[in-house]
Structure formats: C-alpha cells, structure tokens
C-alpha cells in the first residue's frame, strides 16, 4: 500500500510539531524518519496511524483519503517504542487480540486464531512462550511480541516508533537484521522512526531527515550521505561518524 502525505501540519498550542510535510511512500518501501530528539518524528507517525489528528493537510492510503478516519478504521500496524503490550494478558492473548476484536461475522474461528498466533510465534522465534505474561520476557522478546501482535491483523502498512530504542547494541543489531529480512520477504510498506543514523541507512530503502517539524531531505541512503542538502544535515550526520 502506498502512503501519500500532503501539506500536513500539527501544532501543540502554538508550538508547530509538524510543519507542512509532503511525502510519498511507494508500496513495499521501507522508509526511515531520521532526526534529532523533539523533531516531530513520533508526532508524524502518530498522525499517520490516526492516533493524533493534523490541524491541516491530508493523508492518503493507496489513493484513498483517510485523514478523517479513526485509528481503528485505518488499522495501520503500529509498534510503540515502549511496546505497550497488554500486561494482564498472556503472550498468546496479546498476539490474538487484534483477531478477537473483529466483528463476529468476519472473525476467524478459535482454531484458526490459534494456528495464526502459533505460526506468528514461530516467525518471531518465541514458540513455547505463549503462556507467559509480558513481564516475564526480556526486552528483545517483548519487542518481537509487539511486532507479532501488529502483524496478526495483516496490516497494509507497518509503523515503527524507535523499534529498537530501548535495547542493547547486540540485540539491536540482531533485530535490525531480522527486520530487514522480514521486510525483504513480505514487502510490507513500512515506516520507522529512529535517531540512529546507522540503523536508518542500513535498514531503509529511503531516508527522510526531519528537523523542527519539517522535512529537510528525502533520499536514498547513499544520496543523503554523499550530498546532504543543507548544513544542518551535514552537521547532524557528522555527529556520529
């Protein structure tokens, strides 16, 4: 599914968090939002998911204007930075949640839900842990459960807010490779937020540099690295290298 964003703006009080953003993401792309803390990345992602509403501008999913639709109608798979797992439910129930809240006439049977959840558990390499509760998992395991939960409803787009932000370097690298591989296999349109440029350049097809709520540059990783569009990007990229 393609995503198109036109002239999107959002202020909190009189503070412009997202300022006139235009962006087109093609079907199957993996795009990274890269920018310093407070630049508006999360806000932009939340607006796309329907968790926040823009003051002006439009969002199109495959050409359809979804700007006024609520998050539960848009059904964008969203992975929160802090996972937001349902702590009172087992891992199994967490992943099954999206399948259970479907209206009865469209809902899968109990057996089908079970098969679906177990196969997802297999995908994220956590088979056998379905009866645990989220507090009984490590950070990396929780992160993957959050993935599986979002994937269970077969979203047309995956939105990831700093998916590996809270993990240590080793787990981070492993999950990054896993995500890349997953994306290559499924070709699910994905947007992910990060302030780690190595992560952005390694995983994404294209990188969007955001600063002060505005897009500074959109380009392929090589392009952005070799030809930063302005001095902010130049300095920002130089910080880590």
């Amino acid at each position, binding site marked *: 599914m393609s995503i198109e964003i036109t002239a999107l703006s959002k202020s909190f009080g009189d503070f412009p968090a997202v300022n006139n953003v235009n962006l087109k993401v093609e079907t199957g792309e993996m795009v990274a939002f890269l920018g310093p803390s407070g630049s508006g990345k999360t806000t932009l992602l939340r607006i796309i998911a329907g*968790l926040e509403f823009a003051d002006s501008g439009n969002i199109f999913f495959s050409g359809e204007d979804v700007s006024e639709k609520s998050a539960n109608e848009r059904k964008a798979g969203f992975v929160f930075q802090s996972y937001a797992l349902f702590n009172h439910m087992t891992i199994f129930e967490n992943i099954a*949640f999206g399948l259970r*809240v479907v209206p009865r006439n469209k809902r899968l049977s109990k057996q089908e839900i079970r098969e679906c959840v177990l196969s997802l558990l297999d995908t994220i390499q956590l088979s056998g842990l379905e009866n645990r509760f989220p507090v009984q*998992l*490590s950070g990396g395991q929780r992160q993957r459960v959050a993935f599986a939960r979002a994937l269970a409803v077969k979203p047309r787009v995956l939105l990831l807010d700093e998916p590996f932000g809270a993990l240590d370097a080793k787990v981070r690298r492993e999950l990054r490779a896993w995500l890349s591989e997953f994306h290559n296999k499924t070709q699910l349109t994905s947007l992910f937020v990060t302030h780690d440029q190595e992560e952005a350049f390694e995983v994404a097809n294209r990188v969007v540099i955001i600063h002060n709520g505005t897009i500074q540059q959109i380009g392929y990783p090589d392009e952005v690295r070799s030809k930063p569009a302005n001095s902010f990007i130049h300095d920002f990229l130089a910080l880590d290298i």
Partner: protein
Amino acid sequence: MASFIDLHHPPGSDRRADRMVRSTSEPLWLRRLLIGIVLAFFVLFLALPLIVIFQGALEKGFGYFLHNFTDHDILHSMLVTLIVALITVPANALFGIAAAWAITRFRFRGRQLLLALIDLPLWVSPVIGGLVYVLLYGRRGYFGPWLQAHDIRIIFAMPGIVLATTFVTFPFVARSLIPLMQAQGCEEEEAALTLGASGFEILRRITLPKIRWGFFYGLILCNARAMGEFGAVSVVSAKISGKTNTMPLEIERLYNDYLFASAFTVAAALSLLSLITLLLKTIAEWQNTRQLEAGRRALLESSIDTIPSKANA
C-alpha cells in the same frame, strides 16, 4: 514500572531497609506511647461502640433479637435499603467509569470544572444535597407543578431517596478510578485502537481489567455509603415506616419510639453489612497484592532460567 526495578535488588536488601527504619525511628518508650494512644482511640471510638451495638441488640435475649427480623416494618426498611443500593451502585459504576474515562483520556474545556464538581458531594453537607432535590422536584419546587400534573411523585417517595443517595455517593467510584487511570496512561488503549478494537472492546478487554481492583474498591465504598446514608435521605423521605424508611431512618424511628432493643437490632444488621463490606475490601486488597507478588516472582524466575539467552539466539 517501579516494581520492575525492585526485582533487581538482591534478596538481602530488605534487611538494610529494615535497619534504616529502626535507626531513624523514635525511642522505644515514645513508640509504645504512640501505639498505646492509637489503640486506646481505636477501642474507645470504634471497637466499643460496635460492641455496644451488638450488646444492645441482644439485650432482651436472642429470641427477641431474631423476632425483630419478622417485623414487617423492619424487614421493609431492609428491602428499601437494598433496592436503593441496587440502583445507585450500578448507576454510579457507570457514571464513575464514564467520568474517569472522560477526565483522564480527553482534554476538553470544562475538564477542571468537572473534576471539581465530582467532589461537590464530599464538601457539601448531605442535608443540602437532599434539600436541593426538594427544591427541584418537591411540590413547590421547580419541576413540582409539571410533576404533579403528570402524577409523578419523586420527593417523599422512592425516586427521591434514590436520587439523594446517588448524589451523596457519586464521587466514590470516579475518585478511586481517576488517579489509577492517570497513572496507567493510555498507551495500551492506543495499541488496541490500532489493532482495530472499538471503544467498547477497549473498555471491556483493556481498561476494565487494568482498573478492576480500584473499581471494586470504589464500588464497595459507594455501597457502604449508599446503605448508610442518613442526612440526604432523611430530607427527601416521608419517613413512613414500612413505606419509605431506609435502615438508618428506621433506626431513628425505633429509637425515638423508645424501642431501643429493636433500634439496636437494625443497627447491628447495618453494622454487620458494613463489616462484610470491610471484609470484602480487605480481600480485594489482599488479592491485588497477591497478584502483584505473583507477577514479581514469575519475573524473578524468568530472569534466572535460560529463556533470555534463547531470545538472543
């Protein structure tokens, strides 16, 4: 997540905390004195009255005590109290959840005002609460003529008692939920939303399970007050024994009629209900901590066994 961090303290750290309490505490004699005063207060103002109530009830023997429960008026007052509680508690449960939800999940104009208004019954005398309904729905009240024209009786009848009781009890559920829901935030609800859940499904599957003990606690408080309310109800009830008397009103009636043993009997029944409420509350709290503890223990075990290393495989 504070509990999460606690887990990483070594098991011996409790003892250190203990020692700290001891080293910062007062000398022994002072501690004994303070505890003594508290105990004396407890006995004088709580335990003794309770004993006196039951003693008074049994004054004319156990047979007479039981005989009271065959009295039509007394039984009727119990029925009235039960009906009032059965209506006001569910009504306040709905209102409390709706109010807590609105106040913690949305930013709207008048939010602070609503928050203050929820507390109104706590800082206004219950008698005033009752009077307001008389002024609104009484014969000479604001809606009086219209109600009379349609032959609807609110004041001096059941509806008035229910309204007045609802007024005095409505802060309890909302008040016990708001801090809880504020602390928990709404990320889980947002996650449920992106998974396609409707508002009702989110309430049923996410919000309610997360707040159930606080909710239960609020319900218990609300119920205790609904059964025990005197002031507001005495204004709007016609106080006709066997018709519009609740248990507290019936106690007053019996007492004023010099039927002390009967008055104490109803009082004992009401106290017994309160004690049961207290017991339920304690069990609720105990269950809550037990569940928390179980979660912690499970977490501790899982950090010992091999699962985390499997995650990195």
